[in-house]
């Protein structure tokens, strides 16, 4: 599979303190890679290094088949970005900002500006200077600017900050469309775990400057089936059935009516079938999956979030 970004032993120290240390990350082409981590974990510094804004102290970065050096700049033509928060020439209008962007990027299909403004759902912008925009509008404009030239790689730091729920949904659809239609690779960081959960193909969890886990969303879903929760008024009889007839010993009685079964080898259907055969009423039976948030907190530890 083609690789969009690969870092090896990437390290950045500011005044002797390592912000990013020995980070190895692999982003495949055409996927959405979600970067998760508590505040100050080094996400933004990492993204700045990928854009050559910050020069690594040690380690290597390969992007789109090229190795990044201190003076690389041509590569930037193939990348779009939002870092920290979208920055504009505040006195200029949204349109003028995008025209400038095209000129600096060396992109000459300026007729696509209006199309892109529509695509990100920016409305009523007229010729207002950008300084009068709300955070949500700036965020949308930032996304418009990042995707305007249809780059191969998008590096977006907190792109959904400041958007309302329906805005988040629109932008999520837009991102998915971009990867599907144009094959764009997305590297996204976010605090909103639920968003990343719905969006990303692969997750990288970063803490204290290190990538502590890199895993595909599918694997997370598969690995993290926690238990089957059974609610029944006949708790004692149910326990008997579980233990004697189904030979399940790994279960826990939570309260008078709830039992949690941790045994992964027994399917939900088998359990309910056996219970019904033994005339035990089932109020509910559910498979509980650990969501990304719990997974994340397990790895990073609650105190740091």
């Amino acid at each position, binding site marked *: 599979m083609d690789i969009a970004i690969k870092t090896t032993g990437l390290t950045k120290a500011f005044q002797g303190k390592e912000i990013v240390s020995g980070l190895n990350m692999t982003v495949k082409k055409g996927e959405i890679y979600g970067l998760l981590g508590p505040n100050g974990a080094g996400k933004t510094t990492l993204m700045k290094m990928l854009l050559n*804004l910050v020069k690594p102290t040690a380690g290597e970065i390969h992007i789109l088949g090229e190795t990044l050096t201190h003076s690389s700049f041509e590569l930037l*033509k193939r990348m779009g970005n939002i*870092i920290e928060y979208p920055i504009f020439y505040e006195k200029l209008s949204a349109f003028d900002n995008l025209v*400038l962007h095209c000129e*600096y*990027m060396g992109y000459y299909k300026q007729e696509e500006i209006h199309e892109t403004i529509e695509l990100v759902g920016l409305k009523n912008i007229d010729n207002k200077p950008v300084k009068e925009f709300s955070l949500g509008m700036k965020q949308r404009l930032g996304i418009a600017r990042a995707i305007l030239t249809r780059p191969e790689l998008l590096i977006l730091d907190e792109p959904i900050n400041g958007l309302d729920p329906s805005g988040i949904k629109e932008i999520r659809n837009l991102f998915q469309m971009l990867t599907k239609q144009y094959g764009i690779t997305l590297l996204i960081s976010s605090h909103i775990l639920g968003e990343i959960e719905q969006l990303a193909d692969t997750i990288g969890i970063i803490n204290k400057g290190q990538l502590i886990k890199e895993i595909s969303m599918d694997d997370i879903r598969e690995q993290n089936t926690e238990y089957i929760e059974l609610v029944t008024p006949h708790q004692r009889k149910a326990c008997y059935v579980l233990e004697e007839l189904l030979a399940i010993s790994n279960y826990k009685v939570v309260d008078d009516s709830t039992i949690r079964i941790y045994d992964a080898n027994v399917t939900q259907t088998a359990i309910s079938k056996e219970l019904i055969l033994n005339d035990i009423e089932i109020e509910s039976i559910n498979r509980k999956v650990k969501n990304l948030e719990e997974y994340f907190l397990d790895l990073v530890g609650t105190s740091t979030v």
Partner: protein
Amino acid sequence: MFNLIRLEMKKESLKWYGLGAIIANLLILVLIIPIQYDEKITLDEMFVILGALIRAVFIVFAAVLLSKLIIDEYRSKTIYLMYTYPIQRKKLIAAKLLLAGTLTFITIAISSVFVATVYSIAHNMFQLSTEEIPVQRLLLEIMSMLKFAIAAAGASLIPLYFGLRKRSVSATIISSLLIVAVLSQSNPWLPIADNMYVALAFAAIGVLIAFWTIRNVDKMDAI
């Protein structure tokens, strides 16, 4: 490079500069003519004062220009946006410095020609002193002022060093005022204003600072 300079002018409207330059020229004229009424100043001194005044004003203008083109871009972080474009950073900064330097030179040159000519005409017409300024003399003075204009354009880049250290607009402008204070000295103990060597030395420092800034920009972290 010209394209980059054009884009710089698109980002930062320079109307204030043109308007300011016109007002400054008129003020210099209004200020200079009464001086001669009041005090007995020789023509030589008069032209030195004229030249020094024009250079002083536009070196400070240049500091404002540098603040807007470079320091402000660092302060508003738009420079990071610039650095994510597929353009060499050196070129980006060089374009800004070239714009500031050239604009300063052109404005000082035009102002010198304008102010010196209007002054000479007024002088001859209203007989401000017993002497007369022949055209020959005027041309000679203008030529000398143009030479100083080149030097002043170089010196106008010195405030960049002080401004970039703390990314401070006030440091940029205050340092330009200090430079002006030194360069405009024309008292008998410290005749700097009409000393070409001192002017060139300042210009050399300014150009060195420009090169140093351009050279460093690739190594710098954009934080």
